[in-house]
């Protein structure tokens, strides 16, 4: 039943994505200066929103593990981190290709890009440290501390970049102050794609949760086998 639900959600996400793709490529008006390339935006922005959401969930789950000591929170944290890293990579790749055309460079130390890179390295370290601890409880305990610290640091770093001079296109989204230049149709396309990404991310997190839970059971069984 659970599996079927997951398949259905995954399929729904894919259908929405493809329908959006059709609309993005053929149905939406052109942006004035940028040509076709600006359409990357419809993937770039939602992937950032998705990775923010994933890291937020991971931070929250880390804190919750420290409070409740329930391994389910640990499993949620690691799953969210991993999916968040995948979407950060999507954001970085699409952003980099866009920058190649618009700014003429693949990479620039634009603070927001820098932030994304730092975040990627930080959470890669988180995933690496988990690999090195064999006992699931100790792993969860340490990962929760690292997850909490990481989330705090990532949030502060994100704030700090607002104070740095930025090359990144300014806020054009209606939710940000001073935005609102955007065609509502474009905004809707972004929101729809975000919905699809969030659905996809949720399916991925759910799959990872079940894998991680079973992995822990396997570890316990193996231990029991050795104890006999």
């Amino acid at each position: 039943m659970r599996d079927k639900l997951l398949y259905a959600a995954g399929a729904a996400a894919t259908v929405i994505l493809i329908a959006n793709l059709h609309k993005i490529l053929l149905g939406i008006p052109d942006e004035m200066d940028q040509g076709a390339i600006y359409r990357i935006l419809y993937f770039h922005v939602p992937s950032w929103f998705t990775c923010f959401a994933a890291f937020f969930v991971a931070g929250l789950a880390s804190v919750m593990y420290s409070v409740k000591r329930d391994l389910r929170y640990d499993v949620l944290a690691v799953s969210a981190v991993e999916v968040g890293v995948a979407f950060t990579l999507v954001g970085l790749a699409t952003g980099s290709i866009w920058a190649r055309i618009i700014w003429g460079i693949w990479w620039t130390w634009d603070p927001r890009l820098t932030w994304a890179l730092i975040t990627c390295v930080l959470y890669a370290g988180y995933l690496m440290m988990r690999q090195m601890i064999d006992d699931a409880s100790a792993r969860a305990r340490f990962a929760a501390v690292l997850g909490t610290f990481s989330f705090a640091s990532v949030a502060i770093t994100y704030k700090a970049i607002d104070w740095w001079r930025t090359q990144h296109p300014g806020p054009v989204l209606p939710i940000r102050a001073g935005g609102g230049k955007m065609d509502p149709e474009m905004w809707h396309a972004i929101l729809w794609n975000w919905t699809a990404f969030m659905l996809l991310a949720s399916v991925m997190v759910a799959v990872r949760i079940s894998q991680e839970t079973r992995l822990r059971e396997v570890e316990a069984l193996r231990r029991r086998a050795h104890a006999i």
Partner: protein
Amino acid sequence: MRLIQQAWTVAAKDLRSELRTKESLNAAGGFALVILVLFSFVTDPGETETLYALSGGLLWLVFAFAGVLILNRSFAREQANDCLDALIASPLSPAALILGKSAASFVLLLIVELPCLPIFGGLYGLSQWSSHWLGLVGVVLLGTWGMTVIGAVFSALTVNLRLRELMLPMLVYPLLIPVLMSAMRLSTVFISGKDLEADDAIWLRLMIAFDIIFTALALALAEDVLVS
């Protein structure tokens, strides 16, 4: 009150053993000196303008590397005879243990850092370096505390890991980016002999906020880090 007293007992013990063997002090001090000398090949020592602009960044890179050498030893020192177990089983609170370890590393790192300032100023003929020495020392104190309080937590987390020497910098540097960023900016301003402008004050606030947030987190999570 008991927290401070217990932390002081731990810090005094650490400082006494380290001052007796000078293992990490020699390593960190020697390392800092070598990098400062090697830096003469990075840019022409005559170009004072460039040197002033790079000064804060260079110094804090040296401090960050030296810091990890000291922090690596911080909990590794307890490993030899299982001393850490004896400390955790004692009436010391975990928060006091982390605070004491952090304070000891703070003092040791300052012993390495403070001589670096005149050596750097002298070697490269930066006549302005001491004009705002009070502010510069303040920045060094705040930045170093941020490094050692996070470093103490992660020294404890990584002490039993495989590849401990690698994992500590891998986890700690990305976390430290906000505090290093501010320390570099402010140090550059002071070493160049300028006063703080309105724009720079935000970096000072960032650094203080960072220190407070992570000290609080470290103390709150100390029990999770040390008691399994």
